[in-house]
């Protein structure tokens, strides 16, 4: 159970336990019980230390997700509709940032791109090889929508493969996203209909 919880909250590594160890462990146990009720999905396991991917603007995921509680799918709107989650168009950013935090240097940087009619050259962080077929929409349908999973908590499902983006500024790849990572999760979640056929993913 504890192990499982650690996988759900990748940030909660034991290494960080340190002085607040007891409190931390108690919290861990409590949250893992809560999780056990919420999930019948076995999340994938494995960690990875991705290289930093420098982005044109140091985009703070933490401010958006943690501080302002914006749903992942508000900006990555294609996740539930297509194969790719998509990077939001600048117009989406400007929808809010025409008025919000306009005095901040990063927003001014963004506004400059907007006024120059250019899109910031965002870099892809989670890139699957060309021979792999992966769809966001099917995963979201199975893991969230078909199971009446509360949509406001969808970040916990995204975290299966993208890690604790809530606590990152620019996203970093913290999950291996290799074949073993996918296959083990598919084997563990057979009951949810996770296919084991090679041709489901290989193309």
């Amino acid at each position: 159970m504890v192990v499982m919880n650690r996988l759900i909250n990748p940030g909660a590594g034991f290494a960080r336990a340190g002085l607040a160890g007891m409190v931390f462990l108690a919290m861990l146990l409590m949250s893992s019980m809560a999780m056990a009720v919420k999930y019948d999905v076995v999340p994938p396991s494995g960690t990875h230390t991705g290289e930093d991917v420098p982005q044109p603007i140091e985009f703070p995921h933490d401010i958006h997700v943690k501080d302002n509680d914006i749903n992942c799918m508000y900006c990555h709107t294609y996740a539930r509709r297509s194969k790719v989650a998509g990077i939001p168009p600048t117009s989406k950013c400007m929808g809010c940032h025409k008025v919000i935090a306009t005095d901040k240097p990063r927003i001014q940087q963004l506004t400059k791109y907007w006024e120059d009619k250019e899109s910031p050259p965002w870099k892809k962080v989670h890139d699957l090889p060309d021979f792999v077929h992966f769809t966001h929409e099917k995963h979201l349908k199975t893991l969230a929508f078909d199971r009446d999973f509360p949509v406001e908590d969808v970040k916990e499902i995204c975290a299966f493969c993208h890690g604790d983006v809530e606590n990152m500024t620019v996203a970093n790849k913290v999950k291996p996203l290799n074949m073993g990572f996918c296959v083990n999760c598919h084997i563990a979640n057979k009951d949810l209909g996770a296919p084991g056929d090679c041709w489901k993913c290989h193309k």
Partner: protein
Amino acid sequence: MSLDNILNHWSDYRKGAEEGGHHDYEHRWAMAINLDLCIGCNACSTACYAENNLAVVGKERFEKGQAMHWMRIERYWDQQELEHPEQGASFLPMMCQQCGAATCEPVCPVAATYHTPDGLNAQVYNRCIGSRYCSNNCPFRVRYFNFYSYYESSWPEPMEQQLNPDISVRDKGVMEKCTFCMQRIRSVKDKAFMEDRPVQDGEMVPACAQSCPTSAIVFGDTMDESSMVSKLWKKHQVERGVYQKTKLAKKDADLRGYRIFEELNVDPSVMYLERVREDI
């Protein structure tokens, strides 16, 4: 079917179609090709090149037997008695027959070619080590081997822009063959899944059938009784798992269906309809 599954259920896996096959199938994709309609125009073959990122090998390599064409048009001159025998040319589009009991599958040392729950004979390019056993064991000679890496020579800039992103570009040392356009099957199935409904007949059209000017190729699911292809199979009394059928009503002009090498017990998924000849 995962490798784990293949290793654990090897004997089931090799069951022939007469014993009910080795799968609980979800679909059984099949074709019916009307040779009376085929005019040998090669449109299907060309469409297949475009759809499946096939390399153009060039004349020299072609002559050496290093050809690469998942769909080939075979030509026959079976009316030699005519003054101009070429007038009597008949054509036969030949691609992987997606055998129900494929002879290419059990010989692969790494299980790169295996049977899918769709009744297709799959080829996993990443798994393939290029032993070429499968090709030697295929009675139809429809497997093609990448003797070279074609990436640069076959698609010079900016031609690489037209490559289909839904299927990988195979590299040197990998076997390939017709997949019944599995990338299209996949997207049709994904769409149906997202809309919570079964796949409809006619939704899935492979590139060759789509481009055929005379609609000689009909594609569909034989598990779906109401599909066009099922009806054609039934009409011409061609059945899966039934070999060397004694067609009592053979004289009936309408009973033209046959599967190539049925007698080899490979259970092909492609039914051909014989060409009707006028008596001259």
